[in-house]
């Protein structure tokens, strides 16, 4: 009977390899984004006023903790890279773990949720970074990047890595959903072929 043959073979199918490769790249991209943004800090001594001929210097620091959007960015990228690490470990070490067909479904749903999470984080950071780079004349907000160039460059690198992570997570979700669809088609026939893992 098709119902009892919920058996999953050892994983060396093409989609298994593709999924593993995509997950490794997504893990590296989101981890790089999290690390670069969390180490983002620049201290500069600037002249803020001049009294007579004596310039008054102040030491200003630009840290990622000053902006809530960047804090969310770091936290979300850490979460998504941890999710990818768990899924890689699950794929390599226990490809046969199964419980009433819930494995592929829960992997697909978790991948979709994490894809939306990393997309939200990357976008929030990029719009706030654009505010810092160009300022906003209507709200009279000055730009920050002309004085803290290294801070802005590192932030830009982290955001680019996060966008690569967004595209990779979208591909990972698409592959997970297609594996779920192929697997469920196998259930509705009476063939006893083993399904994808």
């Amino acid at each position, binding site marked *: 009977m098709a119902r009892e043959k919920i058996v999953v073979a050892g994983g060396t199918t093409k989609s298994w390899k593709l999924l593993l490769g995509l997950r490794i790249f997504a893990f590296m991209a989101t981890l790089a984004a999290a690390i670069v943004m969390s180490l983002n800090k620049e201290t500069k001594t600037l002249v803020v006023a001049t009294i007579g001929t004596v310039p008054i210097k102040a030491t200003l620091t*630009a840290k990622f903790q000053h902006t809530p959007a960047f804090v969310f960015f770091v936290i979300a990228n850490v979460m998504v890279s941890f999710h990818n690490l768990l899924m890689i470990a699950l794929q390599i070490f226990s490809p046969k773990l199964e419980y009433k067909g819930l494995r592929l479904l829960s992997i697909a*749903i978790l991948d979709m949720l994490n*894809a*939306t999470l990393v997309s939200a984080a990357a976008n929030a950071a990029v*719009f706030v970074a*654009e*505010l810092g780079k160009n300022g906003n004349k209507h709200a009279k907000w000055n730009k920050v990047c002309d004085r803290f160039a290294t801070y802005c460059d590192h932030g830009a690198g982290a955001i680019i890595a996060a966008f690569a992570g967004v595209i990779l997570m979208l591909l990972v*979700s698409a592959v997970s*959903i297609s594996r779920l*669809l192929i697997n469920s088609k196998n259930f509705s026939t009476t063939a006893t072929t083993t399904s994808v893992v």
Partner: protein
Amino acid sequence: MVKLTKRIGGLVLRLAAFGAALAALIVMVTSRERASFFAVSLEAKYTDMAAFKYFVIANAVVSVYSFLILFLPKESLLWKFVVVLDLVMTMLLTSSLSAALAVAQVGKKGNANAGWLPICGQVPKFCDQITGALIAGFVALVLYVLLLLYSLHSVVDPFLLQKS
């Protein structure tokens, strides 16, 4: 009978998501306030911030997509494609909502370290309308996540409820 209620439930969910995205779009577009102090008048529009423009565009795309999918016939094979498209639309919604929220938070609280003053004290009605648009966007997002799970369920039948 069960299939009919499920299909009607899905249609109602999509209609509600379309309504919420459209409401977010309209409330954001009609937010505009003119304030004047010390003979300087400033007008706050949604086009002042790039994040709000992106929010409007993203919600417009999602509304048009929801409206078109309402008319997709039940037997069409495109329902499998709708799952991935729903995921893309959900990602679009989260990104636009999160960007607009990040920028609105800077507008409300300012950023002391960058020397950015909050603007909500000068244009309170504008700020309230932006808040309303963000709430509608959040409702649209929650409905879209439910829609995503619903489309996945209707295409895949993951709990093997149908007898083979």
